């Protein structure tokens, strides 16, 4: 009786398996097909940047096939990388971004440590407040900030508007809340026994932070650093509003305002500039992809 039942079940199961694996194969083929379509959609602009950056302006205005380079040339790159103005933008951007990363880390790591480990009066409210601050967009604050900077200049005589260093004060408002938030998540996931053991051994709070928390939460720290750098590098609205002189501009604003001269668009150079401007975040992403993605998802999944 029972052997009969097994015999019957045998072939039928086999057939089902066959159809399932055939379904699976088709599902896989379709997946690849659509992935290729989406990849084309997602990668067209950057590839088109690269294609155009290799063309001379004569070839661009000849209106040949836009997707292909017939006479590749590096003249756009040479021209931009030897132009003092462009190098100035690059330099401003680098200094601002690196300094902002430093400031952000100095502010957010100690604060995150205090908020994650030391329960004090108002600590949960402050943590929520930090998260809320992250949700306040730059486009809400640029007008009052502009007026505030003008007022500071009127009252104290310190010139802040139209100076690149003003961005060092303003950018942390974008980076610090998020970095603090994800560092709280990383610090909170460290087992309590670890810092209790350190305290018993006589370590001060600061020693606990520098000797235990920072080394253990290093992946989180790297993710936060990458986030702070890419945000400061990409920021467009604040520098557009606060800086106007050509020698004070950062890269995104510099490219959009100086390479577009009146109605004459030198597209070869604009695309080269855009590609060079996109290069630092892309290079960081290529090498530290896992940290980058960890930082992205941490904001929503760690909280």
């Amino acid at each position, binding site marked *: 009786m029972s052997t009969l039942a097994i015999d019957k079940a045998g072939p039928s199961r086999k057939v089902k398996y066959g159809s399932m694996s055939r379904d699976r194969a088709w599902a896989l083929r379709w997946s690849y097909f659509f992935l290729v379509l989406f990849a084309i959609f997602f990668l067209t602009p950057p590839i088109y940047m690269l294609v155009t950056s290799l063309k001379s302006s004569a070839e661009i205005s000849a209106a040949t096939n836009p997707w292909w380079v017939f006479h590749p040339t590096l003249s756009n790159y040479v021209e931009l990388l030897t132009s003092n103005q462009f190098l100035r933008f690059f330099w401003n951007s680098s200094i601002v971004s690196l300094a902002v990363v430093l400031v952000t880390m100095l502010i957010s790591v100690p604060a995150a440590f205090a908020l994650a480990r030391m329960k004090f009066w108002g600590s949960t409210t402050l943590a929520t407040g930090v998260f809320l601050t992250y949700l306040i*967009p730059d486009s809400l604050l640029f007008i009052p900030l502009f007026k505030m900077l003008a007022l500071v200049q009127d009252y104290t005589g310190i010139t802040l508007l139209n100076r690149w260093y003003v961005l060092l004060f303003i950018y942390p408002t974008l980076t610090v809340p998020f970095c603090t938030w994800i560092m709280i998540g990383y610090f909170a996931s460290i087992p309590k026994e670890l810092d209790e053991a350190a305290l018993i051994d006589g370590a001060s709070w600061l020693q606990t932070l520098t000797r235990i928390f920072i080394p253990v939460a290093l992946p989180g720290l790297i993710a936060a650093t990458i986030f702070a750098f*890419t945000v400061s590098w990409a920021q467009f609205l604040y520098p557009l509003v606060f800086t106007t002189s050509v020698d004070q501009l950062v890269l995104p604003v510099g490219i959009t305002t100086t390479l577009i001269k009146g109605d004459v668009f030198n597209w070869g150079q604009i695309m080269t500039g855009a590609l060079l401007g996109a290069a630092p975040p892309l290079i960081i992403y290529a090498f530290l992809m896992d940290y980058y993605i960890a930082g992205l998802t941490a904001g929503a999944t760690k909280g």
Partner: protein
Amino acid sequence: MADVVVEQGQAVRAARARKQASLRNVLGRKSTVAFFLTLPLILLIALLVLYPAVYSVHLATLNKSMQKFVGFGNFLFLFKRDTFWMVVKQSCIFAVTAVFFKALIGFIVAHFVHNIPAKGQRKWRGMLLVPWVIPPAMSTLAWLWLFDPSYSAFNYTLSFFGIGPINWLGDNVWARFSVILVNIWYGAPFFMIMYLAALKSVPDQLYEAAAIDGANWWQKIWYVTLPMMRNIIAITALFSLIVTFANFDIVRILTSGGPLDQTHIFATWAFKVGIEGSDIPLGASVSLFMVPILAIAAIFILRDVSKRGNEA
């Protein structure tokens, strides 16, 4: 005699030690340390986020030269202007459509990436996230060039199918479409990454159980995947709604609000009125109109975040 002296000395020393210790205690007390560790953060938020936010409300009640208090005058002036209502409408269309399609494309692509063998997933994921990594100001320039009126690469390609030429940024319907398309292109990879992370956390047993019950692929998505991912979908969509609603870079570079102010959204119009038109109070009032929608989204996000905090 000698004993007493020794005792006295010890007592004095002990008292001094106690005094030093109490000073050290205050400095080393947990709340004091915590206060100093969070002080820079509090100062930054108070001076450069909260103060400007309150200050913009004050600015919005002044007249153009910022010398006279006009109360709600700026708001009433805005209500009477057609451009303002157009901006409201366009901001809502822009944000809702863009977020919906970002979420949809992100969900679909995440499924496809999740479907292929684990070995290739890293490569695909890396490639598909590129739009999110490039600074939006830079990639929008590439789109601007793709849409260029005389050398548009899109029109060149479409001409082979007998379509076009389309005036991508000059025609108001197409300009609105283009602005939204670029935003979807930029934001969909973020959704893809979030959904992919969420998909990985759905236990396989649930799908096996569903398969045994005879569920087809659609039922698996509807009854297993979606309920398991509800939280992350909600949070990502709300977060993206805030960012998209407050978007500036893409519209500014692509159309600067044109043609005829048809593609302006709050941020770009506030910039045009407040900074370029140097009517700071009016610009401040325009950007304040973003607050209600941001606040509603923020409340929902906060509810979700604290809910999950309690679960953990």
